[in-house]
């Protein structure tokens, strides 16, 4: 059966480790070596919602591996002309060896995977899943510390609406880590996730001194039905130089980006700041995902 990457929920710890290990291999390869691996292969990208980092890093990842990409421009596509997503994606995926899809509708990637013979990667489906982001987050942590088990990881900000932190929390449930949730009352992590993964520490104050990893998130305006509620919580928990300096030696500050004021630019030069490296890790992580799903082992 072909492999897909649709949801973190589908993955065991060993699957996650396989992806991370392939990402590490990809990062260690020389450019010349990498560029021979997928020569002649095509990745199709279908983005029915705006994306900068996910789209470009997949494009870069495939090109680093020597392959090429074809891209469906949603605004001039058949979807805009009224063709359904299932038909459009089956056609586009059929032109390629592997396909990435992002859609505002939850469950789209799974539907697409059922309608095509090539591996399908979920590049984000509404408020549901964004598994490649989660894998690059885990890759960043593992690369930094050499391990994930035993770490104390704080998640900060919009824990109610942010799918990134939901998926990361579920993935971290496979590891022996302490998770601390830090958020205003209004944006607390949904109870079903807190219960499912047995998180015991929830704070409404910025306690970050003893953390190994602080994962900050953007408060997503579009997820708030009540704009007044958004205005009220947006200014809380801003990370400035003084606050980040309180973090212990060797700790790191991550953020999925884009940020909208929750991390001050003055923090960027501090030793804890790791969000730009994290974003760059999107390329080797996605190279690893492509290699794993295409069943390519460079050492074989």
């Amino acid at each position, binding site marked *: 059966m072909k492999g897909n990457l649709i*949801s973190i*929920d589908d993955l065991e710890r060993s699957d996650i480790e396989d992806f991370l290990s392939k990402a590490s291999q990809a990062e260690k390869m020389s450019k010349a070596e990498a560029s021979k691996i997928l020569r002649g292969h095509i990745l199709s990208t279908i983005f029915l919602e705006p994306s900068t980092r996910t789209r470009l890093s997949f494009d870069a990842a495939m090109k680093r591996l020597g392959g090429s990409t074809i891209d469906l421009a949603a605004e001039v596509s058949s979807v805009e002309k009224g063709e*359904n*997503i*299932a038909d459009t994606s089956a056609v586009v995926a059929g032109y390629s060896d592997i396909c990435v899809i992002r*859609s*505002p*509708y*939850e*469950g*789209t990637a*799974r*539907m697409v995977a*059922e309608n095509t013979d090539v591996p399908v990667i979920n590049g984000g*489906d*509404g*408020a*549901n*899943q964004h598994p490649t982001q989660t894998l690059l987050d885990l890759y960043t942590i593992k690369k930094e510390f050499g391990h994930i088990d035993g770490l104390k990881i704080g998640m900060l900000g919009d824990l109610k609406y942010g799918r990134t932190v939901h998926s990361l929390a579920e993935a971290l449930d496979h590891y022996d880590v302490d998770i601390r949730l830090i958020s205003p009352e209004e944006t607390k992590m949904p109870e*079903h996730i807190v219960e499912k993964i047995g998180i015991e520490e929830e704070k409404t104050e910025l306690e970050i001194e003893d953390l190994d990893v602080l994962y900050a998130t953007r408060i997503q305006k579009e997820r708030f039905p009540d704009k007044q509620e958004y205005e009220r919580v947006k200014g809380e928990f801003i990370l400035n130089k003084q606050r980040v300096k309180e973090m212990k030696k060797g700790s790191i500050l991550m953020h999925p980006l884009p940020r909208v004021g929750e991390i001050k630019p003055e923090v960027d030069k501090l030793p804890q700041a790791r969000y730009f490296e994290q974003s760059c890790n999107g390329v080797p992580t996605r190279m690893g995902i492509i290699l794993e799903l295409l069943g390519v082992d460079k050492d074989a």
Partner: protein
Amino acid sequence: MPDLKVSKISNGTVIDHIPPGRGLDVIKILRMERGFDNTLSLLMNVESSRLEKKDIVKAEDKELTKEEVDSVSVIAPSATINIIEDYGVVEKKRLRLPDKVEGVVDCPNPHCVTNTGEPVEALFEVVNQNPVELKCSYCERKFKALELEI
């Protein structure tokens, strides 16, 4: 034994022990509210020894398919299905939810791909039998039986 206010049927199906208030949903889920030509009775809030109150649906000359039995089990898992022939019960079926429920109820999440006109039917994995809890196989959200739309 309390008097039943609707007479027995000669042949057909009696769906008994439906949670009170869910009888109408059972008729809807079986698509009998329109286009069913035989006698159809709905009793609501009947006194019951097993449940304090219950609804009952009686359908003359109606035999339920397996898919129909499964669909009743999603919204009324406590119900029993009695097959009637010549005024007598010839078979009594207890319901059990299948592991997967396909095309029976819509996903309550308006952003789920199954609600966007795409050629894909709602599919749920049963994560809990009692109380009934289903997980949408597409949007991955979980729902209790009462949240499901008929």
